[in-house]
């Protein structure tokens, strides 16, 4: 999912939306360049008890991997 150039809280809201329609076991990749997004998405995903990993792919650009386990 591409969230580049989107401002806070849009990436988080889009993550919520996409996770809902995904099937169990799917992996959602969120691309973002918003520094706050990596923090609030990670926090929210942690609260859902889903595993997530953040990789900085370039200067100020991140990819967040979230696996929908349940």
């Amino acid at each position, binding site marked *: 999912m591409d969230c*580049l*150039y*989107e*401002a806070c*809280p*849009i990436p988080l*809201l*889009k993550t919520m*939306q996409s996770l809902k329609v995904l099937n169990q076991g799917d992996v959602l990749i969120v691309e973002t*360049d*918003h*520094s706050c997004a*990596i*923090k609030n998405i990670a926090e929210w995903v942690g609260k859902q008890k889903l595993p997530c990993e953040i990789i*900085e792919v*370039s*200067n*100020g*650009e991140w990819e967040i991997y979230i696996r929908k386990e349940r």
Partner: protein
Amino acid sequence: MKSKIIIGPWSYLTGAILLAVLNTLLFAALHTPWQITTGITYWAAWIFKFLGGAPENWHYFANNASKSEGLSQSFLSNSLSLMNFGVIFGALLAVLIASQFKVKKIKSPKQIFAALLGGIIMGYGTRIALGCNIGAFFSAIPSLSVSGWVWGISAFIGAWVGSKLLIKYLL
């Protein structure tokens, strides 16, 4: 450990404690706590003056000694203006040390509209409420001012309405 400090992100709690300490030091050293938007108002007034306006005759500036003095200064000689530049500069340093600087473009016209509209109503709000989230809230509540609490509750209700609008129109 070292990379965690340099690259971050720090926890919100760390940030909160450091901001509290800084604001206290600022208050103790310079007798006035942190504020942002009066400096931004000067920026606006100076630009308006440059474009041919005469804000110095406005009631807002003319009837207030400290504001008319502030208006007579410039971007680099006014303390509040300078502190705002400092905030921008400090944030720039913080991203550079982590090598995370990137120019972020605008994605859609909708964003421009939201940004402009949000900015205008925020700006207007700061003038009539006598401050922004810093001057009327973050520095006001610790000053034991009742206005800080009232502002906080109002802003919370505003944020609730704003969130509904955001989900409806911007998502």
